[in-house]
């Protein structure tokens, strides 16, 4: 986890790379209950504007949440917020770079609020999702 006292605007969050696989999309459909054929039916998806299956936006959003969980731990789970936009779809085979950086830190007596810019990009550097995250961290 990140040491809150050392954070300042521009501090990068620990980036990671995820590979989007159709098997994971299928499993996500089962676990989330979202069985929209655009995600899991190749024949159906070929006839759409996307030309093939795409990952659930919420699946990719989970990568951002993992990034924030690794960075801020329990504070993220009990005091985090996300505001993101879905830009382009992630497709099976995409390697998604998940990254972020601190944009602001405000420190109070008993807690700090850390604001971050976050995004997921594909190999072509297209933004799949991006937005802002914030987390309230209690001062030990």
């Amino acid at each position: 986890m990140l040491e809150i006292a050392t954070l300042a605007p521009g501090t990068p969050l620990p980036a990671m790379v995820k590979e989007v696989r159709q098997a994971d999309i299928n499993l996500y459909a089962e676990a989330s209950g979202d069985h929209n054929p655009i995600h899991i039916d190749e024949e159906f998806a070929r006839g759409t504007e996307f030309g093939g299956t795409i990952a659930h936006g919420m699946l990719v959003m989970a990568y951002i949440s993992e990034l924030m969980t690794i960075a801020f731990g329990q504070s993220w789970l009990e005091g985090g917020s996300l505001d993101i936009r879905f830009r382009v779809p992630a497709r099976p085979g995409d390697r998604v770079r998940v990254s972020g950086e601190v944009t602001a830190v405000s420190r109070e007596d008993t807690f700090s609020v850390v604001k971050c810019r976050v995004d997921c990009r594909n190999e072509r550097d297209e933004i799949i999702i991006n937005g802002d995250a914030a987390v309230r961290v209690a001062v030990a």
Partner: protein
Amino acid sequence: MTEKADILEFDEGYEFPPVNYDLKPEVMRDYLAAVSDGSGFFAAGEAVPPTMLAARAMISLFEHVSLPDGSIHLQQELRFLKTVKPGDTIQCRGRISRKRMRGRFNLLTVELAVDAPDGDVVMTGKTIFSLPGNTAA
């Protein structure tokens, strides 16, 4: 099987029927595998990933209401307030808070909330969809 109602039939302020959902440990394991979670934070089974709550909350709203083909998930806000554990039963609530036309599309904003078994709110959120069609209220 009962046919689902088109979401565009409902006006601003419509509240979706609350839906209870059991957070089964085996489903959480599948979820963590699907998102290839490497945080290690949920392996001990002390908390459910908050994005899994969000995903289940959104899907539960559409148990009785359908989105038209061509609907696009544009934006998502989430606020995490408290954790729940695998095995808990959550209640998912939602309401249509805004419905607007933009060109030939409807922009629909749905507010979400998830309650813990003790009644505490564990997550809130706001989802914006773009829906094709010209039948906005």
